[in-house]
């Protein structure tokens, strides 16, 4: 089947899930995120709407996250699963602070590094090198820490040749490589990974998964969003399934996977 089966580490079955008793690092309470399906983006329309006495709604709204409550404990490896549009990326964005919720609350402690979809916080007009510095600084590294880790970051990403090229010319895999390399070198305590592994080639995926395993063995907390159910089954012990912005399953990864794959 896939390389996952040949890897001695990854082919071992995940031990049964036991709810963690470690301290909570992410506490999500009744979180609601409302999006506007905006029809207008000009002042003219907004002005007309105001003149008309604000009749009718300027725009339709819907809840991408609809009352999500979730506690994540230190050292847990959690897979966030669900169909397209179920709210997984939105939840990660709220946890990383990129967006704010409309109701409810998120509390977190520990350094968070997030790889949110492809292109985790790079500036397209800067070179790979400059982006390593910018991204590293954003994730809380000091100049000397980045200087020290720079070679190792580039080596991990395996794109030495392109490090002085502007990242807008990178392929999505190269983007991922560099973003992943920076993120793991910031030594995050909570690591959020959204989907992105899908664009890496097989050798790099292997390398990432090995690195993720290593982080988790050092007690780091991991939240992975992926549609690759076979992969998350080997990587995470806990699965959370979202459906239309609500949690419909939270527990052993095998239960979560079979929720999404009732026939298999």
């Amino acid at each position, binding site marked *: 089947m896939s390389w996952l089966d040949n890897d001695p580490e990854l082919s071992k079955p995940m031990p049964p899930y036991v709810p963690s008793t470690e301290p909570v690092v992410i506490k999500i309470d009744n979180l609601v995120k409302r999006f506007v399906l905006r029809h207008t983006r000009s002042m003219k329309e907004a002005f007309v709407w105001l003149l008309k006495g604000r009749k009718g709604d300027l725009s339709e709204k819907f809840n991408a996250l609809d009352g999500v409550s979730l506690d994540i404990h230190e050292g847990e490896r959690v897979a966030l699963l669900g169909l397209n549009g179920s709210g997984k990326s939105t939840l990660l964005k*709220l946890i990383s602070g990129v*967006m704010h919720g409309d109701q409810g609350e998120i509390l977190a402690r520990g350094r968070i590094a997030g790889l949110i979809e492809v292109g985790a*916080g790079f500036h397209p*007009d800067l070179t790979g090198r400059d982006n390593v510095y*910018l991204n590293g600084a954003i994730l809380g590294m000091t100049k000397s820490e980045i200087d020290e880790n720079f070679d190792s970051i580039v080596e991990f990403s395996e794109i030495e040749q392109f490090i002085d090229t502007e990242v807008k010319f990178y392929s999505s895999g190269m983007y991922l490589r560099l973003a992943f390399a920076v993120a793991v070198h910031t030594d995050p305590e909570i690591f959020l990974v959204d989907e992105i592994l899908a664009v890496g080639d097989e050798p790099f995926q292997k390398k990432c998964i090995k690195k993720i395993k290593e982080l988790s063995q050092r007690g780091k907390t991991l939240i992975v969003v992926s549609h690759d159910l076979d992969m998350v089954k080997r990587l995470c012990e806990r699965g959370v399934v979202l459906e239309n912005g609500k949690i419909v399953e939270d527990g052993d990864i095998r239960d979560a996977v079979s929720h999404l794959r009732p026939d298999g």
Partner: protein
Amino acid sequence: MTTEIANRDFRRPGRGRGLLDVPKHTFLLRLLVDKELQVRYRGSILGILWSYVKPGVQFIVFYLALGVFLDLNKGLENYAVYLFSGIVLINYFGEAFGNGARCFVGNGDLIKKIYLPRELFSVSTIGVGLIHFAPQLLVLLIADFVVGWHPNLMQLACAVVGMCILTAFAYGLGLIFGVANVFFRDSENLVDLLVMVLTWVSPIMYAWERVADKAPEWLLHLYLANPITVSVELFHYAFWYPTLEYEWHVPPHLLSMWTPLAVVIALVTVVVGDLLFRKFEGNFAQEL
């Protein structure tokens, strides 16, 4: 394997502390300023040297066209210096305000994917503005020394105050328009218009007495309540007046009343901008 994480406090992700975040992130701020300059001068041979060439040429053109050919020196002695001390300010204001208004949209790629205290973007535009202001100030000082300049300490202090007022005002307006621009892209077009209007409703091209001669008192008061007018007059007082042979008067109550008022207006702008920013920052990522 419990680490010391249990002893740490919970934070709400993505909630910055506004300007209080700046001192903690000086390295990141420097990178953002560098980034801005790099993107601006990408593929240019002279690069940042352009910011010396432009004001230099601008000054020579003013001196020849307005001072010598149009003979405006008759009305206002050292007219080119007069004009230039206002122009450098409005250039700085236009740049800081304009880039401030564009900064959130322009940094959309970063804002959408990763959290950093976003007010740093606004602060970095002030940094870029100051970097471009420095060469203009240099040209102004050279012109000053050529025509003979004898400022006293008070006048130099006025220049610093004028600069601070304008910085705060540009920062505040940049924040307000920057936030608005995320939701309505019209806002950045409004900025250029506003800068143009503000250039003409402050005594940059002409002397304030012209307004005093023509306008009723209430209009003059309104005119002097404009923080840009105040900064420009403070700059005239510092960089032009000490080159004159004759007595000149700053607008009445400039130092005792209009300057403090301008400080208040500029600070209020910053506070309003900051409040708007905090209220809407959480929606930036989804709107960009």
